[in-house]
């Protein structure tokens, strides 16, 4: 819109010039401090402060020593920066008898997240593709069930899933947890992929069929390579969701394979004497670091992918 603001009056001015020498001429003046800009950036700035405040408090607190926290103001910057809480949170904070901080949980989380993300996306993308391009009879019914499933609180499903996993002998194993994550990631991911593939030109799919490619051929060679944005969205959603999961991690794993969030909860809730807010905050930031990094790196692609997966219905 801003370029029109320049070009339109310019041409209009050219006409006016001939008729009236004193009229506006040349590019329309723009004010950096126009009321619109002050309002716009002012609002954005205020909102940004609200969004950043918790992060700021977390970081600042994690760099303070306990005495300073007890005395001071949570918003004041640390007088004396210490990385002690970070070290403690990462490597020595205790839960019960285990005093190895979050470090073990970090690798467990990686071991859980990577296969879960891969499997859930693999399944959901194929689902979405089958629903968008190969609708078979009854497919919609299953899809509706799946969407309704997105609304079922996980707590309700814990018990039936315990029984199912027990019956197939996967309870307590990493494979079991990966499957659980794939199941609960399926509704929203399938919806996103289905929408995305539906928004692709139907003719492309037809051309590939005429070219003789089958179900898998079209998916792997035509559709998937074109779907980077939506895969990015799916990866982001799943990495965040699975990394941040607490409930399944705690119910379906053993202590030696607890993911990071469970250990975070353990550390934060294992109050030994006084609550060590600085360690808690450092642990909190450490736990959130992986999804945060994923977001910061792929922010632009995320919006693009969301646009493709959510906007076209």
């Amino acid at each position, binding site marked *: 819109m801003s370029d*029109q603001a320049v070009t339109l009056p310019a041409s209009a001015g050219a006409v006016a010039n001939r008729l009236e020498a004193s009229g506006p001429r040349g590019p329309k003046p723009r004010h950096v401090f126009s009321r619109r800009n002050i309002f716009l950036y002012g609002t954005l700035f205020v909102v940004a402060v609200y969004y950043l405040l918790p992060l700021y408090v977390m970081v600042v607190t994690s760099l303070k020593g306990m005495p300073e926290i007890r005395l001071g*103001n949570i918003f004041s910057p640390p007088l004396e920066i210490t990385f002690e809480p970070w070290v403690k949170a990462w490597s020595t904070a205790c839960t019960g008898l285990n005093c190895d901080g979050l470090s073990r949980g970090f690798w467990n989380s990686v071991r859980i997240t990577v296969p879960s993300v891969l499997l859930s996306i693999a399944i959901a993308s194929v689902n979405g593709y089958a629903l968008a391009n190969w609708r078979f009879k009854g497919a919609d019914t*299953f899809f509706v069930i799946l969407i309704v499933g997105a*609304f079922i609180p996980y707590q309700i499903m814990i018990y039936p899933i315990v029984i199912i996993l027990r019956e197939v002998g996967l309870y307590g194993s990493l494979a079991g947890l990966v499957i659980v994550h*794939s199941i609960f990631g399926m509704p929203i991911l399938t919806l996103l992929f289905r929408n995305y593939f539906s928004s692709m030109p139907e003719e492309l799919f037809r051309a590939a069929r005429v070219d003789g490619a089958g179900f898998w051929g079209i998916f792997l060679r035509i559709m998937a390579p074109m779907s980077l944005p939506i895969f990015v969205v799916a990866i982001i959603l799943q990495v965040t969701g699975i990394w941040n999961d607490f409930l399944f991690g705690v119910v379906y794993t053993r202590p030696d394979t607890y993911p990071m969030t469970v250990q975070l909860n353990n550390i934060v809730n294992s109050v030994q004497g006084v609550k060590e807010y600085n360690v808690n905050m450092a642990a*909190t930031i450490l736990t959130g670091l992986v999804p945060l990094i994923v977001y910061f790196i792929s922010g632009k692609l995320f919006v693009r992918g969301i646009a493709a997966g959510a906007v076209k219905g």
Partner: protein
Amino acid sequence: MSKSERPNPLFRNLNAKIASIPMILTASVIFVGGTVWTVFYSFTNSKLLPRLNFVGLDQYYRLWATPRWLISIENLLIYGAISLVFSLVIGFLLAALLDQKIRFEDTFRTIFLYPFALSFIVTGLVWQWLLNPDFGIQHVVRDLGWTSFTFDPLYNSSIVIYGISIAALWQGTGLIMCLMLAGLRGIDEDIWKAARVDGIPMWKTYLFIVIPMMRPVFITTLVIIASGIVKVYDLVVAQTSGGPGIASEVPAKYVYDYMFFAQNLGQGFAASTMMLLSVVIVIVPWAYLEFGGKKRV
């Protein structure tokens, strides 16, 4: 006819069907099967372990006579209304602001979106801390000299559910904003040109032209917000554990507490069933209209 056999309808699109087996299994075994199982056992007096000792509707009578359940429902409605309205309004407004071809759009967008990367547990912890009257915002403001300042939403029974929503909105609006922004970017530029030429004020263009055009985005957004509302649990646990007292209890927590803490599966299942029922009543007709039946040529 000719040599090509009429294929058995079961084997048509065979690969598509094979590929959909995980979805079919999930939908039928986990979601439908698990639900049926849950509903079935809600008519029993199962305690720690499921057993087939039917007691009819007893669990439901008890459920609806329990103050905590009633409070949970009420809280869910309040929380739901707040999340829905505010996420949509704030999300849309932020998206509209970012869509003004502003500078530093990437920075602002990242700032608004980053909380979404954090888990509810983390979100809950941080906000619990910020809202703690002894050293959070209230404390800081009082230290600045305004000694009668009171801001303790998590410690005041009558407003605690609103306090919880503060953190929920902080965490969730970024994603909504992203969806809305994506929707706005999908609007044909010509619409804006037309509105400008016609001299329609910007807010009117948004309200009467752009928003109606963004229906699919709103639908996806609604699915995401609404499914989050029904499931709200971690946020409450991390911030208040349902307190003070039982003032911020929510249905999902009731289900979990009664199934596992109270070792009364029957009661938990009855509460689950009520939750499922309300979900089904609201969602299924809509989902079917939206995703089912529509044929593409």
